[in-house]
């Protein structure tokens, strides 16, 4: 069965005089014509032909993107229309655009799981060959690796690269420097091991402050960060693709981190916040209220801080501390965030590709980084453009995990639920690992 939507516009029957029956016929015909016309014409682009339409998901980067688009128009004469639909409506609007065959020329590329159906359906240009040239050389290897669909990808997308990114994020620990100082600790000296970090958090707690918090929706990222102490990237990939079981010693030790944090009593409120705005609530507690000394978050948090708590700058960042009993060098979770995919069915596909190539050029990424606090994906962007609060994480950004496939969304959901259950002492580590195997098998 096919789900193609094609329709022809009907026109009302001409009437020589307007009798009642003729009037009703004309009204009926008009309604039918309007309804059928609204179904779309089966085209592949929303653009008018002369302008390129970019459906943008990001609110935080909208202004910077708009500025760069205007600059590009001035330089080349090619008009770029940025359609800022925002994060809440982006996927819904993109899905309805694909169903009506009315896709934009360019659209934001998010995580691989969400975008895979579009890539599978042929709505994204395969950039693999183009990335083999000088364009590809401008990116950090981690950005390219994490955006490459390999042959064993569980989404069954044809192997290749379908998006180009200008942000290379990473996740780590953010600490309130003055709270650390008040507890006799030096925030500029990151803890060498996880046990040292937990000791620091205990001291924070003794000083009467809330020590550490992270959102349930980021628990999978924390777990994956810490797992790199026990697994190589290939071993992580084997688990994420279901070739290896979650019930292994490495994962047991990884999840033990949650038990250790819980038993040390350093998780603020004794539970992980959940809900739609769980991470915003954590960020609010850290940046706005300064009610918690340390959080686990992504580098994009600095942009949130700059927008919502511009006066609070006394914080530092560092990667998740290494495990005391780790067998591998720990690596950050990250690689690629904001980027774009080009619609190959668009009449403007070549022009759109040129714009995306221009947008991801180091010069434009430098301009981007000046407007929005982020770690650029271009290797050549000078370090002074990286915000001071991100330098701790940025220093290790070359140590990003190069895992070919990510956890599927069903496993992510089960892991987040399991992390909450461990912190609440409702499930043991072994039970949660069993749940993850089940989620992987049933996905």
């Amino acid at each position, binding site marked *: *069965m*096919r*789900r*193609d939507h094609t329709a022809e516009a009907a026109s009302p029957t001409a009437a020589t005089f307007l009798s009642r029956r003729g009037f*009703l016929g004309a009204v*009926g015909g008009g*309604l039918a014509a309007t*309804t059928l016309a609204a179904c779309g014409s089966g085209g592949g682009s929303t653009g008018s032909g002369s302008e390129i339409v970019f459906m943008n998901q990001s609110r935080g980067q909208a202004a910077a993107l708009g500025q760069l688009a205007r600059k590009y128009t001035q330089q080349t004469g090619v008009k770029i229309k940025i359609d800022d639909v925002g994060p809440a409506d982006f*996927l819904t609007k993109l*899905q309805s655009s*694909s*169903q009506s065959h009315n896709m934009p020329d360019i659209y934001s590329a998010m995580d691989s*799981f*969400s975008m*895979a*159906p*579009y890539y*599978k*359906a042929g*709505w994204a240009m395969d950039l693999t060959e183009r990335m083999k040239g000088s364009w590809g050389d401008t990116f950090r290897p981690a950005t390219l690796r994490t955006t490459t669909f390999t042959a064993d990808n569980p989404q069954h997308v044809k192997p290749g690269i379908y998006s180009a990114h200008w942000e290379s994020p990473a996740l780590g620990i953010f600490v309130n420097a003055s709270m650390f100082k008040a507890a006799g600790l030096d925030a500029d000296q990151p803890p060498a091991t996880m046990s040292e970090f937990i000791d620091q958090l205990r001291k924070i707690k003794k000083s009467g402050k*809330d020590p550490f918090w992270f959102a*349930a*929706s980021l628990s999978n990222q924390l777990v994956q960060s810490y797992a790199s102490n026990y697994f190589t990237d290939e071993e992580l990939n084997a688990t994420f693709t279901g070739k290896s079981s979650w019930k292994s010693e490495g994962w047991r030790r990884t999840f033990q981190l949650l038990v250790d944090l819980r038993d040390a009593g350093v998780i*603020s*409120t*004794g*539970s*992980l*916040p*959940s*809900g*739609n*705005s*769980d991470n915003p*609530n954590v960020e*609010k*507690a850290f940046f706005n*209220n300064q*009610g*918690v000394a340390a959080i686990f978050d992504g580098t994009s948090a600095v942009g949130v801080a700059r927008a919502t708590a511009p006066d609070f700058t006394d914080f530092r960042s560092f990667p998740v501390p290494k495990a005391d009993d780790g067998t591998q060098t720990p690596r950050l979770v990250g690689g690629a965030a904001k980027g774009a995919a080009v619609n190959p069915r668009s009449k403007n596909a070549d022009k759109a590709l040129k714009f995306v190539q221009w947008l991801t050029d180091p010069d434009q990424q430098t301009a981007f980084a000046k407007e929005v606090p982020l770690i650029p994906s271009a290797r050549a962007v000078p370090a002074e453009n990286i915000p001071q609060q991100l330098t701790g994480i940025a220093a290790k950004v070359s140590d990003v995990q190069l895992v070919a496939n990510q956890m*599927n*969304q*069903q496993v992510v*959901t089960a892991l987040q*639920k*399991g992390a*909450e*259950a461990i912190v*609440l002492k*409702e*499930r043991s580590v072994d039970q949660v690992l069993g749940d993850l195997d089940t989620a992987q098998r*049933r*996905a």
Partner: protein
Amino acid sequence: MRHRNRMLAAGVFLAPALAMIAVFTVIPFVQGILLSFQSWDGVSADTPFVGLDNYRWVMDDTEFWGSMKNAVVFGAVGLVVANAVSMVMALAVHRARRGSAFFRTVYYLPGVFSTVVVGVMFSWFLDPKIGIVNQALKTLGLDGLTHNWLGDPKTAVIAVAAVFVWYHWGFGFILFLAGRQDVPNELYEAASLDGARGWAQFRYVTWPGMSHVTGIVSVLTLLSGLQIFGTVQVLTNGGPAGHTSVPTLNIYQQAFQFNEYGRAAAMSVIFGACLVALACVQLWVSRRLGGGTNSRTEKGR
């Protein structure tokens, strides 16, 4: 001939409404059922038939069936607590000699807000650190009663249910108020002459007189409780550790997070059938109760 013309005109005038119902209700309904036998990722043009695979998958999904328990809790809370609160408020406002317009507006107001606004607002109110609820308790010296309302499994369902009641009481309130105003005063006068006071008047005059409204409000609040989604998604997203998970949230996750639209459709069909069955039971019970009491009311008249 004239009759035929009248029928034709009626058909033409009904046609737009019927077309709307067909496009926005009947076709999606049929498509939803059809989709439950297919596999679709939400984008692909191919939607192969998979027979009963989706239904088999749902039957084995312990999380979906586990979440039914919470739906029943929210349905029961909606049916009993939300309706009781709405009725008490409606009766109080009906009796009020002053400020009834003010209270009518205030009590109805929560239902005007969008679910997301309500969810975000209460997630702030119930925040364990800076929430107004805990801050108020601290101000009153009741530090011992401060709590992680949404983070503790013992209180999360109660907190979400309380928000649900607050959000939905306006709907029941306005209908109960209209129903109460519909009960003739002569019945109360007659009841007074027979010596009926407070509770007796409510039991034998007010309750039977409002039975038709109670029936419809009960069905609608029961269904609202069973289908609760937005409040849960914004407040807890099913957490902590799945304690507030509901079927609608599972359906949403399957479709929009896991890109498994066929499984989501199968869940919807099963859940929809459960809702229809429960609504039928509820209507039957209402008719049984209302039918008897209505006849008494008619006799009273």
